[in-house]
């Protein structure tokens, strides 16, 4: 056909399609490029080119072709789908969501598009919407284990661990080889406190994937929660051996060793963790704790200072720093550090109290007790001035009372603090 009509864009596109199916991807791409160069408005060819480039991981080139395809045919679900994937991979999650929403609008039964939309929404922090999309995907195609896996993760993020367990267990039962799902199942089980079951899942995963460092790490954590310290140590040692970059494994092993009275070995592990990740605040903190216990105040101070530099919101780090300074006969430094520790503790406690106060205010608002509601919201703001919900709810209450100007001001403050209201 091409021999007969070498300028036929559809012919080149068709050939590219056949070559692609035969696995001759590079040749297929060549044909698609020829097709679009012959006819840049050939939407199918642009889509085929973009999708094939995506599969070959040439993301930038894929994006260009797919954007062209979408411009030519905005309601083409598959083009939108692949464009969404491409944008997400490039970090443009907002853009990805737009395209994936368009894809599902055009093709409501395209399960994989719902699934990817859910994942993108999850990344963007809109968990409820993510769960809705993923549930839709699961309904459309219950056989996809990756959908169940993503849904399970989203449910865990929302704190619905029990449903996450059910969802992930289904994925694992359908696809026992799906390691990620089993790993996530273990996490969900731990969240529900089912330590034995979590351990069983991790054990199974390490049996199936003996090189899976993450599985050994999670197994170690579960065993540790079960007070099986010997087995926990063994699992964690496997994890750190299998993944030389994982900092958590040596850190966690260090904690286990410290709690077992093996401080020297613990120090070595915390140092190993720091060699893998220099800004590991917790590892610095544990080193500081051990050095202080040993009376090595200089080393302890260095570690605590590093901890507070990396993590300036840790009250215990400041408290420990203060105690070490006091022991080093630096009363002024100690006072300052302890004062900061106390301040951070108060901030945390006040923040929690503010959440309760907002909740109490909302109860009052529902019962039309405006004055009491305003009182609670103001209390919440006093406790935590940067709580966006407190300002937002106060604006609602003030509006009900008729204080529009003040209500607007509070709404403005809420939005400035990040309230999407």
């Amino acid at each position, binding site marked *: 056909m091409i021999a007969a009509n070498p300028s036929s864009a559809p012919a080149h596109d068709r050939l590219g399609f056949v070559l692609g199916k035969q696995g001759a991807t590079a040749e297929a791409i060549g044909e698609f490029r020829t097709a679009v160069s012959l006819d840049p408005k050939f939407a199918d060819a642009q889509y085929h080119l973009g999708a094939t480039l995506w599969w070959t991981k040439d993301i930038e080139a894929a994006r260009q072709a797919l954007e062209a395809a979408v411009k030519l045919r905005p309601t083409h679900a598959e083009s939108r789908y692949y464009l969404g994937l491409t944008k997400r991979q490039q970090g443009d999650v907002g853009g990805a969501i737009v395209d994936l929403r368009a894809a599902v609008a055009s093709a409501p039964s395209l399960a994989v598009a719902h699934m990817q939309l859910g994942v993108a929404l999850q990344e963007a922090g809109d968990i409820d919407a993510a769960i809705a999309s993923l549930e839709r995907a699961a309904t459309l195609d219950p056989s996809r284990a990756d959908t169940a896996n993503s849904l399970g993760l989203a449910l865990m993020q929302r704190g619905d661990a029990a449903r996450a367990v059910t969802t992930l267990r289904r994925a694992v039962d359908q696809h026992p080889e799906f390691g990620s799902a089993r790993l996530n199942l273990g996490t969900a089980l731990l969240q529900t406190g089912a330590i034995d079951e979590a351990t069983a899942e991790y054990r199974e995963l390490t049996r199936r994937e003996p090189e899976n460092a993450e599985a050994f790490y999670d197994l170690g954590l579960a065993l540790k929660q079960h007070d099986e310290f010997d087995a926990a140590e063994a699992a964690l040692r496997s994890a750190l051996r299998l993944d030389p970059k994982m900092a958590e494994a040596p850190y966690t092993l260090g904690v286990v060793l410290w709690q077992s009275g093996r401080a020297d070995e613990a120090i070595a592990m915390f140092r190993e963790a720091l060699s893998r990740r220099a800004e590991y605040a917790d590892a610095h903190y544990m080193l500081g704790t051990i050095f202080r*216990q040993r009376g090595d105040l200089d080393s302890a101070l260095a570690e605590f200072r590093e901890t507070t530099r990396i993590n300036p919101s840790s009250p215990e780090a400041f408290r420990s720093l203060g105690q070490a300074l006091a022991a080093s006969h630096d009363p002024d430094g100690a006072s300052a550090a302890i004062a900061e520790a106390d301040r951070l503790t108060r901030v945390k406690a006040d923040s929690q109290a503010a959440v309760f106060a907002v909740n109490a205010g909302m109860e009052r608002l529902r019962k039309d007790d405006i004055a009491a509601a305003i009182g609670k919201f103001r209390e919440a703001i006093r406790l935590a001035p940067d709580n966006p919900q407190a300002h937002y709810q106060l604006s609602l209450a003030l509006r009900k009372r008729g204080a529009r100007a003040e209500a607007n001001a509070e709404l403005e403050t809420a939005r400035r603090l990040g309230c999407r209201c």
Partner: protein
Amino acid sequence: MRRLTCVVLVTALAVIEGHGQAVQDSAPPFSFVNVAREAGLNAPVVFGGATSNKYLLETTGTGVAFIDYDNDGLLDLFFVNGSTLEGFPASKAPTNHLYRNKGDGTFEDVTSKAGLGDSGWGQGTCVGDVDNDGRDDLFVTYWGQNHLYRNTGSGRFEDVTRAAGLQQSRVRWNTGCAFLDYDRDGRLDLLVANYIDLDLATAPTPESGLCRYKGLQVACGPPGLTGGKNILYHNRGDGTFEDVSEKSGITRASGTYGLGVSTFDFDNDGWVDVYVANDSNPSAVYRNNHDGTFTDVGVKAGCAYSQDGKPQAGMGVAIGDYDRNGTMDIFKTNFAGDTSTLYANSGEGLCDDRTFAAGIGMNTRWLGWGTGFVDLDNDGWLDLFLTNGHVYPEVRQLKTEAGYAQRKVIYRNLGNGRFADITEQLGAPVTTPKAGRGAAFGDFDNDGQIDVAIANVNDQPDLFRLKGDSRNHWITLKLVGTTSNRDAIGARVHLVTGKAEQWQEIRGGGSYLSQNDFRVHFGLGAATRVDRLEVRWPNGAEQSWQNLDVDKFHTLTEGAGQGQTAATEQGHNPVAAEPKGSAASQEARSKALSQYLAGHIAEAIPFLEETLKATPDDSQVAYALATAYAQTRQPDKARGTIARAFKVSPDSAAAHLLTGQMMNRLELEDLAQAELEATIRIDPKLPEAHYLLGQIAIFRSRFDEGLALMREELTLNPAHAMALYRIGDIYVRQSKWNEAIDALQRSIWMNPYFSGPYILLGKSFSKTGQPGQAEDMLNQAIAFDPNNKSAHYLLAQVLQQAGKLEQAKREFAIAERLQGDSK
């Protein structure tokens, strides 16, 4: 990626090595028996919703006090009771209970007679002779108005709260309390901890979704809620108290959310200090400044946080000199997922967190409440007893191994600064899961062993009678103040036997919301004499005694007995003491018991009969005689002897049941069967009879009969783990695997610490094509019972079928070795 964080790893774990491990392997020389039902302590503690709680108010449970209110030398018991959100009609509200010790192993409920039948959200209790009239008074804390009950001496108490000036102007959540003489004026003052300023009208609820535990919606707090302020009342000496909380500095503490309270002398300066275990906040050490004020030095002294600087959810507190260096150490119980905390007192105003070094850090699963330092084996080293139970009844929905009802934890002091967890070796009732809260420690039967009274949530209380090692000696001291407060709270006792020294105190409060026996108990090991005893009285005066007899109770009065041997006093020994009697009767007793122990049963009977006639309360002889009758197939005589020992009618169902149990233990199945059948005829609803009869049926392969009997037992006691296990056993024998799995899983639900159901579950899962589950169950069985050859053998088979040949080979080898060892 969502890598699991290490937040949970801050706590837990320590390895017990070497010497500790060796001790752990040998059986402990003591055990507990739960005698609460026989003793008549039957009124349940009602506290909040049984399956879910809307407010934290419903979770804290109540305390218990040992008090000798009638001064007969026998410890009586006072249990605080609670309420529910729904409330009760006036006549049906649960009340506190006072039980009078009758001296025969039983108690009489004298609540009404004593005028102590108040109701409300009771919390804790403490005891003290407020007016120094020689009669101990009672204080009960509430969410709401506390009450002070003055002991009038006629078996009654009078509510003097208002007259004493202890009315509170608003609802406060009062918790732990302790009487103490902080200003050394000879009169007992009162410290009351406060938890949360809880207003039910505004407190957030689980439905708000703001408060979750492992995904479950639970009661909110304490973080986020306003903390309460502790209270100190000064005793004016005229029957009234003055609230000196502000001016004493008690309200200026580093933390809040106070729960367990105990007095102690932290810095050994002779002035009483106080420890308050705070929840989610640094705990407090109120150091007495000697001028009517206190300073909270807890944070500065290192007694407030965990070893890595974090606040813990402190509940109960035990004080004791566990390392025998003359300073009072602190032990605090904490939340699940965290260890308890052991602070060794350096003697220089500092605490040294020894949790991990002492081997305490090996347990993180349990949620601890009442606790005490107690010498359980009388070896002279203080052991630790912990009562556990989860806060949230909602956790029953989770498949956690700890659950809502939890076992106790017993740590045995190894004498080298370390402890060993011997809980599993002790078995029931220690390993029986309960939702425990307050616990009080005292020798209720005056046998020289310290017993434990426990308040459970929405359940009957427990009374654990300690059956100790009779080879070790002991001494118990009652101190009577004269210029000091009469209870001698704040006194310090130093005891010397040979080269060994021990120190104890008389303390107000203690444990969780509870009050221990004021008498001071020392285990003495092999020492047969107390060489020297020194007392520093609360007002600072010091006295000493020498050459005190052991295995006795002594009363030491302030100002009397300086440098002399103390007056001795033989306490009542209603259950297990050596009887008095002539030398001749002692000789007959020895002969009778030697014959019996040597196996000359028939020859021993006449001597045992003669001895028992002379000393009818000698329970050891009674037991031996009953057993001898049983072994010589004289069931009526056996039953008669048992009935007399337990003070029941020989024709009663109880007598038949006890006899049946004895016959069963002696493997006299036909006699046991007859007794148990008689039990059921007389009282078909008496628990245990059907179970024991069912067991006999199973052993004789009468499985259908056994099944019916076990099911009948379960209608009387649905939580009977062993009945469920036996049902599972029958189904396994009948190859009814799914039915077996159901029954065995429910058995584990009731008692997760017995290896039997796990083994049978392993077999059942293996037979139903679930090798992964089978392997897990068998591993679990081996974890509980490493020397169980069946478990190893079955596991070997499962592994072999799964293709794990190396592991299978190892398990086969272990099974064979154990088989060889048992020959």
